[in-house]
């Protein structure tokens, strides 16, 4: 072989590239310690009766993809390049960025089966009829058991803050929402769409009600949502009272909370929390005063089927409505299930006074999950 510096240098760089994973693994740079993806990492496949020899390559590939050396560092580098060089979301599979606002990017990951985008899907008359039938049956069952019922729909962030969304002219979420809610109301299903309340809340305060870098509302938004729900519940429970701002010590933070859902890929975006009152801030902390819960006139039991907009602590920094609503009940049972049939055994056993089902606007299209195959 004729050697020269150029050939040698090229070969050495290539060998380093090929050895990257081995070098990373020998230095302990694996994904095993710090999983940034909120999922179980794949394990080394053992060949047995369940995993045959022919399945081994695929399973091993999944395992290797999760754990090759330097993987996390490379992912962070990608996020840095996307953000610093191209000024776009580091996780563009999931989010869309406009200045320092991030929006949930449903179209990017919607399941292939749906072939539609959530904010454009128009339900057919047959689908609507079938969906309302399901809700009516649910309502009828709950009426028989003397359980009150409310279906709450939480507005999407881009619906409340279209001015920060990169394509405000293309937000049509309300078309789908009103289609569903009108159909349900006609059948006598009690519904509450929190869109108008959140728009009103946005006008009455200088503080943001949704988070800039997360699709959820913050605790302030959740509090406004809570008050609207309690007002609506007065139809059923005239004595129910809502908590007031004066019931809390409120601390407003001027920066973003640390964002965990995109974890390390976004870690560098976050700053050390500072406590200061500033206009148009997004993170609001509510801290209980000791005597607050006891003063409320409590109802015995509530069952909630909802998502991260309701469930306190379901995901870090989510402002869950139940953080407040639980104070109005002696017992609160929460299930992370915004769409899906009710578990009658549970209802027979617990005998709640109230059942709330909650869905965020962008997930309304998933109601067709409830339908038989020929209507999907």
């Amino acid at each position, binding site marked *: *072989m*004729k*050697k*020269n510096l*150029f*050939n040698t*240098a*090229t*070969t050495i*760089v*290539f060998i380093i*590239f*090929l*050895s*990257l*994973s*081995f070098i990373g693994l020998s230095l302990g740079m694996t994904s095993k310690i710090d999983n*940034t*993806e*909120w*999922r179980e990492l794949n394990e080394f496949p053992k060949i047995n009766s369940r995993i045959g*020899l*022919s399945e*081994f*390559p695929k399973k091993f*590939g999944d395992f*290797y*993809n*999760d754990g*090759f*050396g*330097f993987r996390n560092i*490379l*992912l962070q580098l*990608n996020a840095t*390049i996307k953000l610093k*060089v*191209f000024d*776009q979301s580091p*996780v*563009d*599979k999931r989010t869309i960025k406009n200045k320092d606002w991030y929006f*949930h990017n449903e*179209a*990017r*990951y919607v399941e292939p089966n749906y*072939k*539609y985008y959530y904010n*454009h899907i128009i339900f057919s008359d047959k689908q609507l009829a079938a969906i309302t039938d399901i809700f009516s049956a649910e309502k009828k069952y709950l009426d028989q058991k003397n359980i009150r019922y409310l279906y709450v729909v939480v507005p999407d962030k881009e619906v409340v803050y279209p001015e920060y969304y*990169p*394509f405000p*002219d*293309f937000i*049509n979420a309300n078309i789908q929402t009103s289609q569903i809610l009108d159909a349900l109301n006609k059948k006598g299903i009690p519904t509450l769409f929190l869109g108008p309340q959140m728009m009103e809340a946005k006008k009455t305060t200088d503080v943001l009600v949704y988070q800039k870098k997360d699709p959820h509302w913050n605790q302030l938004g959740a509090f406004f949502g809570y008050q609207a729900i309690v007002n609506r519940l007065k139809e059923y429970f005239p004595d129910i009272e809502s908590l007031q701002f004066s019931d809390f010590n409120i601390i407003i933070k001027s920066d973003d909370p640390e964002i965990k859902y995109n974890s390390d890929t976004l870690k560098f975006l976050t700053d050390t929390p500072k406590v200061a009152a500033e206009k148009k801030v997004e993170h609001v902390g509510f801290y209980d005063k000791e005597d607050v819960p006891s003063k409320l006139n409590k109802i015995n039991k509530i069952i909630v089927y909802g*998502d*991260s907009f309701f469930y306190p602590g379901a*995901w870090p920094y989510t402002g869950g409505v139940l953080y407040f609503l639980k104070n109005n009940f002696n017992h609160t049972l929460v299930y*992370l299930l*915004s769409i899906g049939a009710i578990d009658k055994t549970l209802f027979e056993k617990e005998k709640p006074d109230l059942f709330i089902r909650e869905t965020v606007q*962008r997930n309304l299209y998933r109601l067709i999950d409830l339908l038989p195959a020929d209507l999907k």
Partner: protein
Amino acid sequence: MLFSSAVFLFLFLPFVLLFYFTIGRKFPNLILIIASIVFYYWGEPNFIRSLLIMIGINYYFGLQIQKYIYQKASAKLYLFIIVVVNLGFLIHYKYWFFLLHDIFGQQSIIKSESIPLAISFFTFHAISYNVDIFRKHASAQKNPFRLLLYFLFFPHLLAGPIIRYHKIVDQLKERVIYFEDFRYGIERFVLGLAKKILIADRLRPIVDEIFSIPTDHMGTPVAWVGIICFTLQIYFDFSGYSDMAIGLARMFGFTFPENFNYPYISMSITEFWRRWHITLSDWFRDYVYIPLGGNRTYALKRYFNLWTVFLLVGIWHGASWNFIVWGIIQAFFLSLERFNNGFLFKNLWRPLKHIYALLAIIIGWVFFRAENLSSALSYLQVLFGFKNQGIIFQPAKYFLEPDAITVILIGIICSFPVASYLKKIGKSFEIGFKISKFVGMTILLFLIAIAVAVQTYNPFLYFKF
């Protein structure tokens, strides 16, 4: 196993190179055969046995054709049988459902899960091998391991280029690897990997997303973004794969033929097919077009031959009406260009020729990419503004994030022979050119490593809750 996967790059390739250049020096072919079997098994574990049996059958028939080479009728019979067997093998796995379901209307037939990897390329290699023996361009391979390597050699196994047996037979026996060749192989491989992973794979989600939008809700600008991205994606994906194959082969001492030569600078579809998937065009020319009579026949027969070849080219790409129509479109434009000695195009202004060629290519790609014929026709209507639309789902800029725009611009620039131009300039500044090339390659490898990691990033969809 894809060349751009983490398993291939960080596990398979390092070990194969290590073994090949250490313990494999005495048995280089054996190492490559084992590696190729592992490579194929990784992607298609349930089919490797059938493939090995087919290679055995081709080995036997090759020897028989050789044996009766001077008894034309017998050799011809053996050739006929093995061609039928190979085509039957292909039809069984790739076209059976289409034939029965779409052609003969048997609605009850159930589609098998997937078409075995590399089956089309394998069939063409097999036919090439036997025909070359019959034509006395090469002798039958007596050493079964060499024949195994010809068929299974992993760089060309999945996506070509199509290697003609008689052109590689000497290299199967013996090869010398110069350091210069090895370095060239690395450069070519890295270039191909960059084309595939940095350009084609970045454009893929845009194309997939746009082609999944119902055309009633797609704006004309979006349709153009989609088809431009696909035009770049398919070129950089396929030519990138060919570059990687050529590069890998060179590292192991093989010289593969070129498969692409800047097809998008063509001024006609005739020229396009001299620059696009060259080894496939050559194969059809030598094994179908010329045996049918080629150009040396009367005009009507020439057109018949041309349409037959491109119908087959279309079918070869996939078992669906889309590919058939795509093939017919190619034949139509080729016929148009030949009509009356090409008087329609002879005196056309050069830029107009480029525009014509690109439009013809793009129209073809719509059929190539769309789910079915009606989707393709609707897409074309949107593309040229002939469709009344309802609510438009997204604006074009939704798909054009800054990194995507950068990739599209780089893709367009690299569709021109910039590299050849740089090489010419580089001759005057050899040292500077080499250093720039080295630095460029290092940067590409760095970006490729990041892109490989990104393709394994699979965040849990917690938003569903």
